[in-house]
């Protein structure tokens, strides 16, 4: 009874997770990160928001 409850719960969650993972394209390819903020010295020179 306890065994079956545990198996049912975790396997159900893994199945749901597998389904949710399948639906997401970023599993195989994801967006590149945002560019790093420019160093302060650069901002001052090119008249940015510093």
């Amino acid at each position, binding site marked *: 009874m306890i065994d079956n409850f545990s198996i049912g719960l975790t396997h159900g969650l*893994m199945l749901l997770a597998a389904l949710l*993972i399948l639906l997401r394209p970023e599993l195989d390819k994801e967006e590149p*990160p*945002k560019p790093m903020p420019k160093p302060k010295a650069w901002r001052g020179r090119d008249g940015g928001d510093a």
Partner: protein
Amino acid sequence: MRDLVFVAFLVALFAAGLKRPFLFVLAYVYIDIVAPQRLTYMLLNTVPISLIAVSLAVGAWLLVDDKRDARFAPRQFLMVILMLYCWVTTTQADFPIEAAEKWSWVWKALAFAIFLPLTLRTRLRIESLGLFMVLSAATIIIVGGIKTVGSGGGYGGLNLMVTNNTGLYESSIISCVAIAIIPLILFLMRHGTIFPMDWRVKIFAYALCFACLLMPIGTEARTGLICVGVLGVLMLRHTKRRFLYLTMAGVLAVSAVPFLPSSFSERMDTIKNYKADSSASTRIEVWKWTWEYVKEHPFGGGFNAYLQNKIRYETVSVDEAGGVATQEETLILDKARAYHSAYFEMLGEQGFPGLFIWLAIQGIGLFRMEAVRRKYLHHADEGERWIGNLAEALQHGQIIYLVGALFVGIAFQPFIFMLLGMQIGLDTYAKRRSAEAAWRPMNEALPAPA
């Protein structure tokens, strides 16, 4: 009936793998941890599902996965060297048959840990690996947790679905691993994207952590209690109100004592009265024997070399009755006692070179996770901070394991090697993201054509 559930589950996972091959990797992780073939009586135990899953995972990676940014980290090289070295010691082993038996699963654990980071190219892959590892271990932990609440467990008496005491189903191993994955469970609760945090996720995660904490009580494995202590100290690291945390932890610990089964308190008492406890005394004697053995055999005796040990020692127990304390000494003779420590297991079986390679793999892991953690925990881009949080969770899990491993022979535990594989995957992923982010401003910095 249960057989059919497992078969249906595996068929679904493999079918998902046909659409997205990374699911084959998750299927192997699941099979390796839960070992569904051991929970059934027919169907599955006649099919080599583990072999099928790993062939599909590696085959799909070779044939269709993007390998442009697959990198080999120094730790993967070390694992290759360790694997080759173990193969050599197996051929020279003191007990060739027994050594070959252990080698048959050790090389698989190492090979999978070497392969795993190559597949971990995206955040979702890293997260889904963590989720499958946690949910697979949860299959055993939830059973243990509920049975402990219901019956109080007992050393060797907690029925974790199978009785053959292998893999995570062994009581000392599960009580160490259960505590080691708590930081990972908390990470998935807070930063997971597959199951984003809501009240259901919170309830499940906290209930699972509670079940994990019950494992050392249910199995009465003393190592687990030490692991809980280490976890408590590690959690102090990012607790804002430390005094309140310490007070709460103290109150909780004291108030839990009356609810513990008396056999548990008695067994835990042996930590301080170790001289009277034959199991603790045996360990010390085995460690002494191992040290003497490697002085003569610096390259180790191959897997399961402990089978040749013969030890004799005395236990000292003090009995106080009627105000008079009598000391009783008992002579105990023993042989073929296991190492009961991953460090001595490495030393005795693989000698000094093996121990050093193993320590290097572990040490680099701690160091790299600390570096990644520091870099990303307060990263300028909030979207990247999870990398720091995961590095911290994996580092804490490893520290708990390394302390637990002082008293349990789990040097090659496949679950832990998966955790190491995940660390390497996260590290190389972070390096690549960092390089991509640093590269882009160069383009943007160029003045727009007039």
